[in-house]
């Protein structure tokens, strides 16, 4: 067994330099005795280089192959752990890569290809090297590999015919491998030649040398030769175990008989395998099967068991005798193997289309199946028993049917199957294909081979091989010259399997990208959906917010009024300060508030219904109309009721809030403003009562919240214009507010004649500013009425509380201005808040 050959026999690592393009293949290993250097320059097409291993090489050989490629990238095809796992290997190589090829194990010979394809003008697919070595046959072949041994045999044969002179032996074929290991080994062989000539000749069938010597060698051999089949290799052991139950169920005498026959056959084959023509051996083996069958029939073994026992016998004998019967040196099997291998290599350009084969090369599933079937077919070589080889073929063919099924989309017929099988054989380029086929045809139980699935598929395989061997331009439906060009490698069809491979890579990449794109698309969609959702939410939020804000505003309006109302109270207070200094305003307010709560409501109604007011309002209205356009600038100067400023004094927080709103910058401020508003709102409840009690005019104002609402947007429109005018004033306000208190003692100042001239107008304009724009509204009229009521209210108030009389003119003078300012501020503030809210949303 090759495995028993020790590693110590030589170094296991060999370096083979391969420079593709301009190839130099220099074997650096001494053990690779006859490695033939390929032609210095490789042209396109294929090249085959054979290396012959000297038998004392070890069973594990590592090739380090430096591939120096001309192109930028390429593919490396090879079989990894060739005879063992037979996994297809596919590696990418780029310039300067170091490819390490491990060839492990194997019997008889091993061949390995590195097909290199470069992306130059044409795709070159060539075998970088093909190694043929013989590992296990050293004792049998005198330490020669199959190739050398055969050559040796021929040489001796010729020598004998011509002149048995030793000198002629040195005539070697020019390309015969020279054992580098070297001369020592070879010289040893020369010695052997002298000493053991007979042994050599014994292997020659036509040798007619002295029988005595021959006998001696046979006796010598017989001591050794039966050993290989008696020695229980694990494989044989396994077979025995597999069939243990069947064997035990045999009648003992049958079992013994079978064993005897098996041994007999093994002995005959082992001793004579090199002297008998292979066909005779085949006949012997077939007869052996028949005899076994008859023997079992004679012992009335049932059909099923008989078949199994026949299987066992076949497997056992063939596994034991594999070395002797597989690709024996007496045949030209090896040459044929190499020939078909070369042929297939030459036909590497043939693709599925040429064969009318409906293999969908781009489908991943199909490609996987193609690889599986290729692997199955390659697996044929690693099996030993013909049956197992047959089984490998069956497996391969079943996979082909599967792949056809997925390519064609239905049950595949023979019309589709045969081309597909040819395609697979072409792409697999199985090692020792002919040897395997011949081995099966010779030594497989004929009854199996001729019938059954295995037989059918094997026949198809034979057909495929035959087709490949006889392939012509016609059989591919190609023009003669085109076929020749392809065969010579001048032209490479565009869509070879390899380019399909490359394309496939691109395709798969594209598919990946497409998938990624799809994914991104989906994600984008979800993002967009989310955005839409968010937008909707935002819109609803904005809407909600607007409603809320409106709601709040509608409520805060009241507050604003109420603010004004308290201002009135406040105005009263300072005025009260002025007029009757001893009385504290708060007390008065509270008292009045408490007292006149009911009054206010009644008064409101009265003010609305009072005919006098309307009368009064109309002239003012007309005046306002006239002045309408000038209102806005006037706004800033509009006389405010004194109360406003006063209110600020009393409630500094509110004033602060307004100022902040005015500036309106940050949300924080807004919050503060809101807080202040709230605060004011809170205050309003308190003040509300008070203001009404004080001035009915103001209360009337508060009583009509609607107009104020309407006013707001208009004010907004005015506010930008007001702003510049207002802002300094606002500063003044704040500054004034404290000062106002100081100034208050001089009430005449606010009543300064400038606004005083406009007093009548001022009073009227203040509401007018609103009315001008909103005249259409009936409610406005009310405001106008309310505005016009101011003096009336003053009268009312006056009637109620005599000490307040003076305050009224004062109010109109300064407070009007301030109130307008405040109002504009309010509006600005509100606008600001609205805007800021919008902005936030």
């Amino acid at each position, binding site marked *: 067994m090759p495995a028993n050959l020790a590693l110590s026999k030589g170094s296991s690592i060999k370096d083979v330099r391969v420079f593709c393009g301009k190839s130099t293949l220099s074997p650096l290993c001494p053990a690779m005795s006859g490695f033939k250097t390929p032609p210095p320059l490789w042209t396109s097409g294929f090249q085959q280089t054979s290396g012959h291993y000297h038998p004392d090489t070890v069973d594990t050989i590592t090739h380090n192959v430096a591939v120096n490629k001309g192109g930028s990238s390429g593919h490396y095809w090879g079989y990894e752990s060739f005879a063992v796992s037979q996994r297809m290997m596919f590696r990418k190589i780029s310039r300067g890569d170091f490819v390490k090829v491990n060839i492990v194990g194997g019997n008889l010979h091993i061949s390995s290809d590195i097909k290199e394809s470069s992306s130059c003008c044409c795709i070159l697919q060539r075998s970088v090297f093909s190694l043929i070595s013989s590992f296990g046959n050293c004792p049998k072949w005198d330490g020669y590999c199959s190739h050398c041994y055969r050559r040796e045999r021929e040489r001796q044969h010729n020598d004998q015919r011509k002149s048995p002179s030793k000198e002629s032996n040195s005539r070697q074929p020019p390309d015969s491998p020279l054992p580098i290991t070297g001369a020592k080994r070879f010289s040893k062989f020369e010695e052997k030649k002298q000493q053991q000539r007979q042994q050599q000749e014994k292997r020659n069938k036509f040798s007619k040398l002295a029988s005595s010597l021959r006998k001696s060698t046979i006796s010598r051999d017989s001591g050794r030769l039966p050993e290989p089949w008696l020695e229980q290799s694990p494989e044989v052991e396994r077979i025995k175990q597999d069939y243990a139950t069947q064997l035990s169920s045999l009648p003992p005498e049958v079992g013994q008989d079978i064993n005897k026959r098996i041994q007999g056959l093994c002995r005959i084959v082992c001793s004579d395998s090199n002297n008998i023509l292979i*066909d005779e051996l*085949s*006949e012997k083996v*077939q*007869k052996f*099967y*028949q005899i076994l*069958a*008859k023997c079992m*029939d004679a012992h*009335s073994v*049932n*059909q099923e068991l008989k078949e199994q026992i026949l299987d066992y016998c076949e497997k056992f004998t063939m596994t034991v005798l594999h070395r002797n019967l597989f690709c024996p040196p007496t045949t030209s099997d090896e040459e044929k193997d190499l020939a078909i291998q070369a042929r297939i290599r030459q036909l590497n350009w043939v693709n599925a289309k040429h064969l*009318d084969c409906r293999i969908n090369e781009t489908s991943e599933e199909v490609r996987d199946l193609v690889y599986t079937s290729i692997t199955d077919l390659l697996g044929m070589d690693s099996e030993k028993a013909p049956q197992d080889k047959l089984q490998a073929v069956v497996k391969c*063919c*079943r996979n082909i*049917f*599967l792949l*056809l*099924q997925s390519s064609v989309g*239905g*049950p*595949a*017929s*023979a*019309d589709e*199957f*045969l*081309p597909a099988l040819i395609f697979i054989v072409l792409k697999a380029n199985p090692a020792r294909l*002919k040897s395997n*086929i*011949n081995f099966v*045809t*010779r*030594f497989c139980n*004929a*009854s199996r*081979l*001729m*019938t*059954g*699935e295995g037989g*059918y*598929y094997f*026949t198809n395989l*034979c*057909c495929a*091989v*035959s*087709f490949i*061997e*006889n392939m012509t331009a*016609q*059989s591919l*439906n190609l023009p003669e010259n085109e076929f020749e060009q392809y065969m010579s490698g001048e032209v490479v069809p565009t869509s070879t399997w390899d380019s399909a491979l490359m394309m496939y890579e691109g395709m798969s990449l594209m598919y990946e990208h497409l998938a990624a794109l799809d994914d991104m698309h989906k994600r984008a969609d979800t993002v967009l959906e989310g955005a839409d959702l968010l937008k909707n939410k935002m819109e609803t939020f904005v809407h909600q917010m607007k409603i809320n804000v409106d709601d709040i505003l509608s409520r805060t309006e009241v507050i604003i009024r109420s603010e004004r109302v308290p201002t009135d109270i406040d105005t009263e207070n300072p005025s009260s300060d002025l007029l009757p200094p001893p009385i504290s305003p708060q007390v008065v307010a509270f008292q009045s508030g408490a007292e006149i709560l009911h009054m206010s409501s009644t008064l409101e109604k009265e003010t609305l219904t009072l005919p006098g007011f309307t009368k009064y309002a109309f002239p003012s209205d007309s005046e306002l109309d006239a002045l309408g356009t000038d209102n806005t600038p006037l706004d800033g100067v509009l006389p405010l009721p004194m109360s406003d400023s006063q209110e600020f004094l009393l409630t500094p927080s509110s004033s602060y809030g307004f100022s902040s709103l005015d500036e309106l910058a940050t949300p924080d401020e807004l919050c503060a403003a809101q807080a202040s508003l709230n605060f004011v709102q809170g205050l309003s409840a308190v003040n509300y009562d008070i203001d009404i009690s004080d001035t009915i005019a103001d209360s009337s104002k508060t009583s009509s919240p609607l107009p104020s609402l309407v006013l707001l947007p208009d004010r907004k429109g005015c506010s930008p214009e007001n702003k510049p005018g207002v802002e300094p004033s606002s500063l003044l306000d704040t500054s004034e507010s404290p000062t106002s208190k100081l100034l208050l003692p001089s009430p005449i100042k606010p009543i300064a004649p400038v606004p005083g001239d406009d007093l009548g107008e001022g009073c009227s304009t203040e509401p007018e500013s609103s009315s001008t724009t909103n005249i259409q509204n009936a409610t406005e009229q009310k405001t106008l009425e309310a505005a016009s009521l101011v003096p009336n209210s003053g009268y009312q108030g006056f009637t109620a509380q005599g000490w307040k009389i003076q305050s009224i003119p004062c109010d109109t003078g300064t407070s009007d201005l301030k109130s307008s300012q405040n109002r504009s501020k309010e509006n600005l503030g509100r606008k600001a808040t609205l805007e800021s809210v919008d902005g936030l949303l």
Partner: protein
Amino acid sequence: MKTIEGKIVVLGSQGVGKTSMVVRYIGKMFSHHISPTIGASFFTCKINIDDTRVKLQVWDTAGQERFRSMAPMYYRNANAALLVFDITQYHTFTAIKNWVKELQRNVEEPMVLALVGNKTDLVNQRKVTREEAHQYAVNIGGSYFETSALQDEGIEEVFLNSAVGMIKLSEDSQCTSLRVYDSSEAGGTTAILQPPPPLSAAVQLDKGPSPGEQERVLACC
């Protein structure tokens, strides 16, 4: 019970419906056993006729002209041949005549020949008359059937007839390639093993398409 194992090879030009016929038959026979999608080019079936069980191995062949030369490998050791042609295309019928000549030349063993005119569903486009085909079938010593793989007509009869033909062959001592054994009785003396054909196979492969003389010799020894 006697069991006969025989091989039927389906021959005919491309597109005459060989595979459809086989698939149709498999579908009927094995719908519950085997998925017919695995492959329609090879299958076995058992037909019981009276007290005889016939195991048929049906080998479908590729009909393409380019594989024509490979045919001998398929019909080697066949016991029956289904010669399928398309009744709407006369050239398929002439192709059958060539097939028969080839078989007569290369196969010495008696063979059950069944001439099958397929595609009777296209009867209005018929180019090969029933009479002509029938006459030819009689001339070559076979029987003639008309089938429609599409409509599943007459297919079973074809296979049944072949099975019956094989039983007749098995009674004929000349036929050696037919495997006959008695499955009920233990002392199966009727087993006729095939002669070893390895050489023929090797020759076949080496010589390529041309079926050699040796094959016949070996097949009959």
